[in-house]
């Protein structure tokens, strides 16, 4: 049985990938899970392992070629197996190859044929055989496997394509459409008058971000609510722990504090750690927090801290370091940018006080963290100078109402202010 190797979907909004290098040549033997091909996308570079062992029967995509996720890249099987010339659906290929019968005879209605066993149905489909023209010799005149094989042998058909095995399981090998469903195209307003200027071509990251932003805005009614938090304790804690963390090789930034506070609030408000579906609101069991990392002009990527609720501040800090560093080096693994249930974006880095971020679908909410600034605040009717931050929460109004969203955000503020 030949096995298809498919261009995987490497990241939530990545729809295509480039074959950078084949690690096996056509005709070379390969073991299951042995690296077969290096794939490059605008978000990650990775190796794709062989979904089955055997011989690399055919490579369909050359090095340097860019194809959509779900495209067949290669076929692995046994040396003598036939493979199709073009990567296509085997059923369609068989149909196209069907010989037009010389005698004009209407195909028999399915009910006339008696019981058709699975293997007979399969062979007939593969060879485009008209079962109505075969005389059955089985029980009650049933067409047996031997009957259909005899008919195939006598029919002037081309060599049959090898029977397809299901591609290996796992997200990596599933066609994109199966994973995400066919998504609608974003509406584009073509400029009616061409103003003077030049056209900047879109790269795939730009297009992926654009598609996702439009999809998100069209999908969820966005509402943003803003609160501010006094970070005195966070700043003091960070100051006190920084060198201790440094000794362990961990650069303690503010981000893990925000992740930790968000996790506490997510546990208290499970409705925020959720997704909308027509059947109901899906409450996620795991708390997986995405942290947006800017790649400068190359766009941005959101690596995910898995099971953030199971992790200490130290662990969060070291994972934030690691994911951010590898994000910038484009060395993230595909599953490190998938599966988030909530996202934090630290727009304060570029000086922004507060923003209205767009929800990372299919999540419920996104937390924007503004710039930390010392501000004058009134505490117990006295004027004090405190490190303050604005926190913006954009949420899906289908799932949350204002009061519960504010309850969540207040809990984040409380966690930051009451840090012990």
């Amino acid at each position, binding site marked *: 049985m030949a096995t298809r190797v498919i261009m995987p979907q490497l990241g939530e909004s990545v729809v295509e990938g480039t074959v950078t290098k084949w690690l096996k040549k056509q005709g070379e033997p390969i073991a299951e899970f042995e690296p077969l091909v290096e794939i490059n996308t605008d978000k990650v570079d990775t190796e794709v392992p062989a979904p089955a062992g055997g011989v690399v029967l055919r490579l369909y995509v050359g090095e340097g070629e860019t194809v959509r996720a779900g495209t067949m890249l290669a076929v692995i099987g046994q040396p003598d197996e036939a493979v199709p010339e073009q990567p296509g659906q085997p059923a369609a290929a068989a149909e196209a190859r069907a010989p037009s019968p010389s005698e004009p005879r209407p195909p028999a209605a399915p009910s006339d044929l008696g019981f058709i*066993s*699975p*293997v*007979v*149905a*399969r062979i007939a489909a593969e060879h485009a055989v008209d079962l109505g023209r075969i005389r059955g010799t*089985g*029980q009650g005149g049933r067409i047996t496997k031997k009957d259909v094989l005899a008919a195939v042998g006598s029919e002037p058909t081309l060599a049959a394509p090898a*029977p397809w095995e299901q591609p290996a399981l796992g997200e990596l090998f599933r066609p994109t459409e199966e994973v995400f469903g066919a998504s609608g195209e974003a509406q584009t307003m073509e400029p009616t008058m061409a103003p003077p200027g030049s056209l900047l071509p879109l790269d795939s990251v730009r297009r992926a971000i654009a598609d996702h932003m439009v999809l998100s805005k069209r999908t969820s009614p966005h509402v943003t609510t803003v609160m501010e938090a006094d970070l005195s304790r966070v700043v003091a804690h960070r100051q006190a722990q920084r060198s201790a963390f440094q000794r362990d090789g961990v650069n303690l930034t503010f981000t893990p504090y925000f992740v930790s506070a968000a996790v506490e609030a997510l546990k208290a408000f499970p409705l925020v750690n959720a997704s909308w579906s027509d059947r109901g609101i899906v409450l996620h069991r795991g708390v997986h927090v995405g942290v947006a990392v800017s790649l400068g002009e190359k766009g941005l990527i959101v690596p995910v801290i898995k099971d953030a609720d199971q992790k200490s501040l130290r662990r969060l800090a070291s994972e934030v370091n690691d994911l951010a560093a590898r994000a910038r080096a484009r060395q993230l693994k595909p599953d490190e940018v998938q599966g988030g249930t909530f996202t934090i974006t630290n727009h304060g880095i570029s000086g922004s006080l507060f923003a209205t971020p767009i929800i990372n679908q299919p999540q419920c909410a996104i937390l924007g963290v503004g710039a930390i600034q010392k501000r004058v605040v009134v505490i117990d009717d006295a004027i004090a100078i405190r490190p303050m931050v604005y926190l913006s929460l954009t949420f899906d109004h289908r799932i949350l109402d204002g009061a519960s969203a504010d309850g969540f955000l207040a809990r984040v503020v409380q966690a930051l202010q009451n840090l012990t």
Partner: protein
Amino acid sequence: MPEITLIEGIRQAMDEELARDERVFVVGEDVGPRGGVFRATLGLFDKYGAGRVIDSPLAELSIVGVGIGAALYGMRPICEVQFADFIHPAFNQIVNEAAKMCYRSKGDWTVPLVIRAPYGGGIGGGLYHSQSVEAFFAHVPGLKVVIPSNPYDAKGLLKSAVRDPGPVLYLEPKKGYRLIKGEVPQDEEVLVPIGPARVSRAGRDLTVLAYGMMHHYALQAAEAAAADGIEAEVIDLRTLYPVDRSTILASVGKTSKALVVYEDNRTGGYGAEIAALLADEAFTDLDAPVRRLAGPDIPAVPFSHPLQDWFMVDAHKIGQAIRDLAAY
């Protein structure tokens, strides 16, 4: 090459393993001076002494429990349960302790234990000396279940079982102890790996899947059917858990018809799992329903001889099922 009986293969395996490794010992009811109720340990007591061929009290729970403890202590026990019918008091020890130890201790502890038990009917043994118990145990990850059908495999599988790092339940088709004979080389080591099934007869028209005594009958039935021009492929499963899926699927992929034969009660018997495997993974290869030929769903193998014959699957019944399936 000399021809020996199946039980002689078992005896030789224990003899050789006792000689090879001083951690190996045999424990069970009447295994000592008497040489076992079926004579599987005949002569071993005289050869290795009371310290290594140990008569136990009539308590299967303790035979297996002692074996587990000794295995954890570094020994290589071979526990004999006199009849598989009496293994049930030890069920908790086997399933809850032996099978789970490696998993439970994250691999720190393993239980290199062999439990031998004669199983199966057709010997006039009635309710308590005829049972097939494999389905209970082939359901338990952590436990390997092995059933030989001939003297060569009996010897080679038992020796492999003794050397296996985990617990192995080794079920012996007792009707075949002296009925089934075969050539086994005596001047070389015979080892048969646990895991792979064996295509014992090649054929094109259908696949018969069996083990133990039923495999012996299946071969006879396949030979008889060949006279009618039906070429049945016969597979001896040998290891029931973990089962050799690739050999099974390759054969049924070729023949497109499968007959699963087992002696146990039909409902929930081990062959039901094979049938389910084929329905699941060989669906588009099938040209006929997967057939099961098994014992009837009654509480026990009857003592009355005519009723015992009615209960037992034999070569004649398998032959009929082969012809029916070939004609489908």
